């Protein structure tokens, strides 16, 4: 479904990577590995269409994602280094708003249920700014529980999470893959996610 050919990324005057080729089918997981600064985040942002590749093409169901635009956005969910939560809103409001922006509004009880799954009960009506680092990350990740997209693009989703939360996320990803979803992710931690096929892309 996702097909990347000859991708090259240039930042400043440096070519971070070139000739990156891969394709991803339903149920498959792509782990992007590489040391700090090797261009993982840059690659993921290109996959979302947030950045423009210096060279090469990214195709979704055969079409270049540049030409698809909003159709493509209907099929992906991107979580980056930044949490994208509003400090002054509480967890429920944050989750409902970010889902609505992503194109599927949810009601309060659904939001409550997913936050419960993420272990945030008791903290769901505090403004997010008083939450701990790991708890804010959990609020962000709760979006995955209510998302109905096919392709998840996750940039270091496990940062700041404790071991129980890491297991939780692992479970969510495996369930998504089982249902025929696709995941592209980076992480510096060791984690073993069951998938139909796990591809690995080593940068640098």
């Amino acid at each position, binding site marked *: 479904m996702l097909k990347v050919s000859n991708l090259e990324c240039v930042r400043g005057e440096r070519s971070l990577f070139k000739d990156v080729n891969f394709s991803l089918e339903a149920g498959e997981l792509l782990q992007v590995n590489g040391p700090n600064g090797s261009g993982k985040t840059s690659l993921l942002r290109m996959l979302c*269409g947030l950045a423009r590749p210096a060279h090469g093409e990214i195709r979704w169901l055969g079409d270049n994602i540049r030409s698809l635009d*909003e159709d493509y956005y209907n099929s992906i969910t991107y979580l980056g280094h930044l949490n*994208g939560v509003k400090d002054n809103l509480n967890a429920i409001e944050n989750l409902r708003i*970010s889902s609505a*922006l992503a194109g599927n509004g949810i009601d309060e009880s659904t939001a409550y249920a997913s936050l419960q799954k993420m272990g945030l009960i008791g903290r769901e009506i505090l403004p997010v700014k008083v939450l701990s680092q790991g708890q804010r990350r959990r609020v962000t990740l709760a979006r995955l529980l209510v998302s109905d997209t096919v392709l998840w693009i996750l940039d270091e989703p496990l940062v700041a999470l404790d071991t129980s939360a890491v297991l939780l996320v692992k479970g969510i990803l495996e369930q998504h893959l089982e249902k025929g979803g696709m995941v592209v992710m980076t992480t510096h931690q060791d984690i073993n996610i069951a998938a139909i096929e796990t591809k690995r892309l080593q940068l640098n």
Partner: protein
Amino acid sequence: MFLWVIQRDLLLAMRQRSDVLTTLFFFIIVVSLFPLGVGPEINMLRSMAPGVVWVAALLASMLSLERMFSSDYLDGTLEQMMLSPQPLILLVLGKALAHWMVTGVPLVLISPILGFQFDLQTDALLVLAVSLLLGTPVLSLIGAIGAALTLGLRGGGVLVSLLVLPLYIPVLIFGAGAVEAVSAGLGASAHLSLLGAFLLLSLVLAPWATAAALRISIE
């Protein structure tokens, strides 16, 4: 989705109830500073009034511009918005509208009272409010372009004012001009219809330019 954006921004504004009030108070304080700086002569104050109120409105609207996108940008929400399946133009329109509801509407409502302080006549007060009603949305719409262009740049707050104020000037001239025309016994309809034309023009063009600017800034 359009509604969601407005709703979210209003919710954020309401979460700190003081937000709306502070813009309002800023407006009031700036207007009140002038008699302090200039001296209490009532005739002079009366003829200054439209200009002062309008300049204060410009500044109040501009002051909150920087926050329009920058907080969304810093915490990553803006990225999410760009990846939203709905058209970016709608989203931008929603944010500009929310900005206007928080900063523009209160000014329109309070302006007659401030006009009183400067001893304006009733018809002038009315025209002042109407001109603000037509003009402040234009300020929010144009301001959105500036805010989008300066996103993530250091010195954004001051830079945005540098970019936006020259573009505000026609609104200022015709807005203040309308009130002066009425005070001088001439009709204000010409001025007001020009303001209306600006509003239509900016409603069509500004969201488009803002969306383009956002895409440029995010890349």
